[in-house]
């Protein structure tokens, strides 16, 4: 009897493990989400510098740091923060950030192409609409009604 239970447990777990592969997925195979984006990384690094500045301020007020050291270190941290802010802004408005987002979106679209959802595909022009819509965004043809 215990052996039967152990075998049944193993079999149930096998189904549990295989389930994500076997279950129907209308969205196609999704990409693993990104952990740290370049922009978030810039922002976080800036926050670390702010935290360092805050610590410095506190230690100066606590009498741990001589005024001269405080001035030099404070200037260094501020310069570092300004540099990071500029890099972050540049990435946000122009090249890096957008390019990165575009490449990410392209990768996801490419992945979606391998398993397109039929209800988003235009029967007339074949355009794959990014959202569930009633009419095709490219040619205006009526799309099949969603289930």
């Amino acid at each position, binding site marked *: 009897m215990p*052996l039967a239970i152990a075998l049944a447990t193993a079999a149930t777990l096998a189904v549990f493990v295989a389930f994500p592969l076997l279950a129907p997925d209308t969205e196609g195979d999704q990409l693993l989400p990104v952990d740290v984006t370049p922009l978030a990384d810039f922002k976080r690094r800036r926050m670390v510098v702010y935290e360092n500045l805050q610590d410095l301020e506190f230690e100066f007020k606590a009498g741990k740091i001589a005024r001269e050291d405080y001035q030099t270190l404070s200037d260094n941290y501020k310069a570092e923060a300004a540099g990071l802010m500029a890099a972050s802004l540049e990435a946000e408005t122009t090249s890096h950030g957008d390019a990165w987002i575009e490449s990410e979106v392209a990768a996801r679209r490419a992945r979606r192409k391998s398993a397109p959802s039929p209800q988003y595909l235009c029967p007339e022009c074949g355009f794959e609409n990014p959202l569930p819509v009633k009419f095709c965004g490219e040619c205006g043809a009526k799309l099949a009604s969603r289930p």
Partner: protein
Amino acid sequence: MNQVGSVSLVAALAFGIYGVVAGVIGGRLRSLRVTRSAERATLAFFLMITVAVVALETAILTDDFHTAYVAAHSNKDLPVYYKIAVLWAGQEGSLLFWTWLLSIYGGLAVLINHRKNRQLMPYVVAVVLGTGVFFTSVTFFVANPFPVLNLQTAAGLAPLHPPEGNGLNPSLQYHSMVIHPPVLYLGYVGFVVPYAFAMAALITKQLGDNWIRVTRRWAMVPWMFLGVGILLGANWAYYVLGWGGYWGWDPVENAALLPWLAGTAFLHSVMIQEKRGMLKVWNIVLVMVTFFLSIFGTFLTRSGIVSSVHAFAQSNIGIFFAVFLGIVVFFSLTLLFLRLDFLKSENKLDSVVSRESGFLFNNWILLAAVFAVLWGTIFPIISKAVEDKTVTVGPPYYNKTALPIGLLLLFLTGAGPLLAWRKTSFQSLRRNFTLPVALAVAAGAALFFAGVRDLFAWMSLVLATFVAACVLQEFYKGARTRQVIAGENFPQALYNLTMRNTRRYGGYIIHLGIVLLFVGFAGLAFKTEAKAPMQRGDLLRVKDYVLRCEGITKGETPNYLYERAELSVVKDGKALGTVKPEKRLFKASQESISHVALRPSLAQDLYVVLAGDDEDTGKALIQVFINPLVGWVWVGGFVVFLGTLLAMVTSRIEREMAGIRRPVEEAIEEKHAL
């Protein structure tokens, strides 16, 4: 039950292998569903190992002596709590237990990161399960706890059901032995998670400080368990082995100390990467070294390659560990070499007198300690290979190497936090060091005049004063400043100061615990010892104590026979009651141990052992130790434990930082409705 155990191990092995493959494929394809499946395999692996553990525990608790493992390590009259501990009393059970803890860590890593660190997780799963597959394979193929006893008869093999087992190793029948191995194992095994994250970061080239932040807590947990486990072991040695001490530089003790030291170095150097974006390669190396040393420690403990008081685990499995370690080292270093370009430092060292260089110095010294202890530990193996004779290095070697290193580390424990990040001028140094140095000098003079002449003990106590002053000064100055800035009263300011940055102030509390540990170590220099054959009415004088033998009795419990001495204790003319040291002979195993009688206090322990019978006189041989300050070792360990718990609490700063994660990812999800 044996079939259940074996079937579960096979199923776990299958899930483990599948999880490794699915993890690698999921990571390569960045596929969410394949990764989910790999993560589920980790949970399935955990559940099947759990079934195997339950099967073995059932066999132990039901006295199923048909199972060879139960017959070898248990007996009917063993109390239930010791029967539970039989699981880790022998080689096979230990390995199964080890694998189970690994599966728990793996399962927790998966559950906690269900929505986080998605790109790292497939590889984390692959590395954790890869290690799990190795341990399960060794448990199943080499040291299986589930074979049954059979008797060879003329008609073939007949099942053998012995009426009684051999019993649990007597030296393991002590309360801290019930929790010492699990806690220590939790320490050893847990370093697999930080290692797995480091490997995943290397593979995915995500080598910013994300993996460091994720890993820090995962490293603190095993670090804490390993530290507590080491002290529980020391406590066991002190109470059970009856030689009057708690640390003997035994190879297996060292084996646990090595990853703890490397882990300590890692927990310090991560701060430099988080704060200043430096030491990226170094941190990866430290995580790797910590994990290697954990496996090496397992290898030392389990292989019996060096002689040790832990001789309960000698076997031929060493070669498997050596091969596994070789593969892991090769894989890790190759990967590190391939990713060196992604590990460039964001900043450079501004000044030699700075917090960064303090940390760096601390790291070098910790690694020097690792090297010194490692060299002493493996010297017998090396001497055997080179000169064909086993040369063992004992405490004198460690006293010459590890103690000076320990004192240097103790100094840095106090001095490091007083240095500012980036650069510290002489003026700043003077502000912070004046009071602690003055107090240390005063303590040094007071100790000298009080008659302390042992250099190590004197330096330990002087440095302990210095570090305690440094740490308390940090708390005091911080709280005073908060009082001024926020208008809080002192206790409020102290509380808020600590909770705002739990990691820093938890760290300071750990440093205070280390100070107390060193105070306890310093007590060794003032140890007094006496030994005498005694019978009813005999007196023994040791320092301020007079012990009078009130009688020797003999008796038995269902589990063991005992001989007990009853001694009344008088100190400075004041009666303190009686102590009753015992000698126990365990019926099942026919092995005997001493049961130490102890009158502990923070000033000194009175430690009395019934060492046996004197051959010449036939009297009971009574051994007495006066051990000053030992109690501070246990108190210090407890303070380190509390400090570590505090450092693991999410601080207000961390909560503020957590709010800025993944904004761009959310933007993609929203704008492009993908």
